[in-house]
């Protein structure tokens, strides 16, 4: 492939990756930025979505000459695999949340989640019969691949469109939740858990809710990604990937969807993918390691000099009820002056 079509494919690839990263960042932002839940196993939920979408699209493992082994395997039409994947993310979040979030304080929750992430990769790698081990599942048929030619440029742009629809839906859902009374309760819990309990908020329930919603969103991002690259293996979801998303949020701005967008553009898309375009100056593993060095430096830099990120959380300003506007007291006049 060369010339104009070549650039089309680069643009398509970057945009789909951006979309996947944006969906993931919005989900993590709801969990961490809004509700303060430190989910260091976030990438596991993306993997749950990717594996589930793959299993429900790839067909039984006897297909393709039986070169891969996995549990189940169905061939359902699009968009069923994506929908099932999203639900799976939410379902898996329930037991993980019950074990990890219910009785522990937030710093310990973070540790448990990191361990969950390590356990999940180890399990998948050590039981090759489960999800084809470290080789992963490949030859996942592209969504709508039987109706359209999946290697055409047109299909690529159609996929960008699908990704954009998912981004937009997630954006709308996250924004609506954050603005609702539920969102306010999440922010109160983030600011002070003990006091939140004392004013009548069921902190365990609030944590579980945000964990389940975030899990579903993460899973959707995985489903979108696996449909595009048609393969998924443990390399794609090692625990440091979660930190790339955390960096994106810290850079972009916690608790702000625009911040999540800025972060998704800058960190996982430009920074991590951009590094791979640098000329190789030493042995290849060095430039790979360079990604994580840069991530670390960026996190520290932002936490020191701009801890609220590029686009900080916006204040939720409410106008006084109409009644007080018609009867302004001295206090109101003063407020208008300031």
């Amino acid at each position, binding site marked *: 492939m060369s010339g104009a079509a070549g650039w089309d494919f680069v643009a398509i690839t970057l945009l789909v990756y951006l979309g996947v990263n944006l969906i993931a960042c919005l989900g993590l932002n709801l969990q961490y930025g809004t509700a303060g839940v430190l989910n260091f196993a976030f990438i596991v939920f993306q993997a749950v979505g990717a594996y589930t979408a793959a299993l429900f699209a790839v067909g039984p493992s006897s297909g393709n000459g039986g070169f891969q082994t996995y549990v189940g395997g169905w061939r359902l039409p699009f968009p069923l695999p994506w929908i099932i994947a999203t639900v799976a993310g939410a379902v898996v979040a329930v037991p993980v949340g019950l074990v990890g979030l219910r009785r522990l304080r937030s710093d310990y929750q973070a540790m448990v989640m990191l361990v969950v992430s390590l356990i999940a990769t180890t399990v998948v790698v050590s039981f090759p019969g489960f999800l084809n081990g470290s080789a992963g599942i490949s030859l996942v048929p592209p969504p709508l691949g039987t109706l359209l030619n999946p290697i055409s440029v047109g299909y690529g742009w159609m996929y960008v469109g699908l990704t954009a629809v998912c981004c937009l839906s997630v954006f709308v859902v996250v924004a609506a939740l954050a603005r609702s009374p539920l969102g306010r309760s999440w922010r109160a819990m983030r600011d002070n858990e003990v006091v939140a309990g004392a004013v009548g908020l069921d902190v365990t329930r609030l944590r579980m809710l945000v964990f389940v919603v975030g899990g579903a969103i993460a899973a959707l991002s995985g489903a979108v990604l696996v449909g595009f690259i048609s393969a998924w293996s443990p390399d794609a979801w090692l625990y440091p990937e979660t930190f790339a998303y955390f960096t994106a949020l810290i850079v972009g701005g916690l608790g702000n969807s625009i911040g999540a967008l800025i972060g998704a553009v800058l960190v996982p898309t430009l920074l991590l993918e951009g590094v791979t375009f640098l000329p190789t100056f030493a042995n290849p593993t060095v430039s790979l390691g360079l990604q994580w060095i840069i991530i670390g430096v960026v996190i520290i830099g932002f936490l020191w000099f701009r801890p609220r990120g590029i686009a900080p959380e916006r204040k939720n300003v*409410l106008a006084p009820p109409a009644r007080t506007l018609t009867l302004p007291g001295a206090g109101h006049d003063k407020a208008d002056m300031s």
Partner: protein
Amino acid sequence: MAVAALEVEELRCTLGGVEAVAGISFSVREGPTVGLIGPNGAGKSTLVGLIAGTRLPYAGTVRLFGEDVSRLPAWRRSRAGLARTFQLSSEFARLTVLENLMVACRDEAGETIWGALFRRRRWRAVERVHAERAWELLERFRLEHKANEYAGLLSGGEKRMVEIMRGLMSHPRVLLLDEPMAGINPTMREEIAEYLWSLKRDGLTMIMVEHELGAVERLCDTVLVMANGRLIGQGKYSEVIEMGEVVDAYING
């Protein structure tokens, strides 16, 4: 005989190996304001935590209007009508003052995923009612010009006020106040006292930990005296103030 608003029986709690609350029993009818005084380290705040459920006792019972709430978490006791303030400022720093108040109101529609997304008209209507009440309180405390400020940016006294208002948002039946006057200038103290007086007149049952004896004398019908995790006396202010321990703690300093 009417059911007591709050009944505490043989409550015990250890903190770091020390028995901070060592078997306390008392009961409060609905209506009066009860003062809880005693030297620093007597266990007053621990007792407040045990009653509110933010701390768990290893023995003893707490009854709210006859119902045993000893095993209930703090949020359930709050919904059962028990509100509290904290000794240290406990505002939600990155919520505005108005949000700090409104978060204490329950709204069944707006606090589920489904309701938040698909029953917006319903929860917006409920929000309007809650906002109305919050503005009323803010006006009474003359803090309405701070309504949309982040609570974390307020002065210590203002934070204290926000906490009391937040406690009142849910229309509690019993209000626990942990040193409402601490660290507040005399003018504002006067305002808080006046406001508490009006709550008392409205018939709200209050239990108040306070070192400011003037306020205790003015507001409290009964005073409980604590020392070393035990109740060492109770009665009218004029009676307990004569007790040796009280004199030692408050007058001899």
